[in-house]
């Protein structure tokens, strides 16, 4: 009896899911909000910051419940890749509906994995009313590390790579990659970077790569082997030259950003860096970094990217997840998380498309002394390279430097 019931359910479920997905893609927003009411969103996200956790579990969850009757269940994970594997395992087990994950905080390689394995729910972003605030003309929003977003995820924050130093011990840091390379050789043992494939270490190596290429112009677009070979040779020469001047004579590298942050906090190295400079402010507030920590960008530019929220193809509660995504995109929530005491994350919406009051509120936001202003960084922004370049550079680093 049970077996028959199970077979009936298995056969019936995908058909039902299909019609629901169609309503979500073609229905009106009011229909979606009505369907979402009373539901629960299981939002899987990196859970290592108490401030971000508090913003989501306290502020966002309360608004979602009060305004839409939706319960938000934040599930903290150590790395988004765990969630990607979870959805992948569900797909392999044939679970096409009723999956455990409704929403993921994601970008970069994890997004690429989800696209390649066809794990993302796509084509719905135009239905969200706040989608009009997103500037999809901006290639840095429309592409996630070179992979076209294609309506498969919704931007949440924009970030741009920044460097941090302790102004009490190093008042005047080098301001360009060329100056930094000179500084490293003049100050043995005071610099290091996390070994790729660490996310942040890999981004540092790309800055050197772009410096070796004389700018990003020739590196944009699809992977080009001959171009790569030429620039990579120069890059490995630079990195091998500085290696003896690195922390512990470059015999070893930190394997994670957390390890490098610890070296910086303890004064062993003079710099740390982060793809999200608001993390410097959070670390100072948490007592991890010295209070005189200041941050800066490079005059030859630093890489920028966008992070997103994504609904898996088999999410149980797609409608409620969409309502949450729309709430996160709203001018009020983009402003709330931009406050330095809340999080300090730069908005993913185009501020110029919001009301005059919201624009004024953004302009009036106090600045955290440890966090370099997003506008200051944005003046020298580098576009991210496409994913194939990243993979090639990471593999090259392992072969040439990290032997």
């Amino acid at each position, binding site marked *: 009896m049970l077996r028959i019931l199970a077979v009936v359910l298995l056969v019936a479920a995908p058909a039902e899911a299909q019609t629901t997905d169609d309503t979500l893609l073609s229905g009106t927003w009011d229909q979606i909000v009505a369907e979402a009411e009373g539901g629960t969103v299981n939002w899987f996200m990196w859970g290592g*910051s108490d401030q971000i956790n508090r913003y989501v579990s306290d502020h966002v969850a309360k608004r979602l419940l009060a305004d839409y009757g939706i319960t938000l269940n934040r599930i903290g994970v150590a790395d988004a890749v765990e969630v990607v594997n979870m959805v992948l395992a*569900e797909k392999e087990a044939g679970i096409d509906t009723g999956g455990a994950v409704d929403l993921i905080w994601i970008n970069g390689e994890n997004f690429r994995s989800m696209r390649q394995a066809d794990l993302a729910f796509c084509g719905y972003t135009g239905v969200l009313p706040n989608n009009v605030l997103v500037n999809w003309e901006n290639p840095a929003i429309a592409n996630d590390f070179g992979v076209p977003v294609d309506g498969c995820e919704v931007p949440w924050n924009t970030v741009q790579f920044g460097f941090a130093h302790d102004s009490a011990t190093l008042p005047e840091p080098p301001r360009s990659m060329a100056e930094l390379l000179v500084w490293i050789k003049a100050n043995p043992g005071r610099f290091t970077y996390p070994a790729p494939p660490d996310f942040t270490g890999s981004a540092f190596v790309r800055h050197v790569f772009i410096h070796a290429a004389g700018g990003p112009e020739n590196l944009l677009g699809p992977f080009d082997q001959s171009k790569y070979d030429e620039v990579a040779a120069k890059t490995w020469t630079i990195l091998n030259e500085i290696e003896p001047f690195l922390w512990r004579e470059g015999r070893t590298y930190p394997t994670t950003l957390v390890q490098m942050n610890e070296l910086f906090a*303890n004064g062993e190295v003079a710099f740390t860096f982060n793809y999200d400079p608001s993390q410097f402010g959070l670390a100072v507030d948490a007592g991890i970094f010295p209070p005189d920590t200041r941050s800066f960008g490079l005059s030859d530019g630093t890489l920028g990217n966008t992070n997103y929220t994504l609904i898996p193809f088999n999410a149980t509660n797609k409608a409620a997840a969409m309502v949450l995504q729309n709430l996160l995109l709203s001018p009020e929530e983009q402003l709330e998380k931009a406050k330095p005491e809340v999080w300090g994350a730069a908005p993913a919406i185009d501020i110029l498309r919001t009301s005059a009051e919201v624009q004024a509120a953004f302009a009036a936001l106090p600045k955290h002394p440890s966090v370099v202003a997003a506008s200051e960084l944005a003046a020298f922004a580098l576009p991210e390279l496409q994913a194939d370049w990243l993979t090639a550079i990471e593999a090259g680093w392992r072969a040439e430097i990290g032997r």
Partner: protein
Amino acid sequence: MKRDVLSALARLALALFLLMPLIPLAIWSVAHGWRFPALLPSELSLAAWSYALSPVSGVVGSLGLTFFIAAVTSVIATALAYPAGRALGRLRFPGRSVVLVLVLAPAVLPAIAVALGLQGLFLRMGWTGTIWGVVLAHLIPALPYPTLVLTAVFARFDPHHEDQARCLGARPLQVLLHVTLPAVLPGLRTGAVLAFLISWSQYLLTLSIGGGKVQTLPLLLFTFATSGRNDLTGAVAMIYVLPALAFMALLLRQRSKTAPLPNRTDR
């Protein structure tokens, strides 16, 4: 007299050995700004504790959940281990050593292999993301411990005591309650505590079978430990470790109070 002093010293050394790793964790949990080369934190703060104990962090709910899962796992594992231990300890049957090896296997196999294999199976059965699925998964590494303890206990248990009680007119239930159970109680208790601690410390199985929805304390702890938040890690670790230590202390006290096992009579 001299033996008492020595035994007290040994206990003290054991206690210190168990508590030493907790000292830096305890300091971290109230530290705000503790950087090299400072010996002690520059400022003290209860921020990490107030976050850990607030409903936002989910730590308190997670503590209850972890305790529930460990307690249920422990009870089921011990109940299953009782007949298994009795059979393995008392009977000599062909293939006994094969059974023993199979019982031991989950304790020897790498956890990741078990977790990956189980996840696919549990997904198909629809048991992932449920508390009972996690309990079932925890039973696999937990079962060998009470089984082995009870095997050893029953190997030293003399069934003539039971025969004697039966001869005197005791019914099977009376024999169990008044003769067998009291004799093997220390073994049952040790096995139950070991199964509890095995479940209490599971990370990989809970993550893969719980699908993130069953958030036990090790999962929360790992999230903070990998993001460099030593203050939060310290506070959550204290909340995680103290119940386990209290449980062990309780066990040691009870053990020293109970009478030794009845010795097997010479035949």
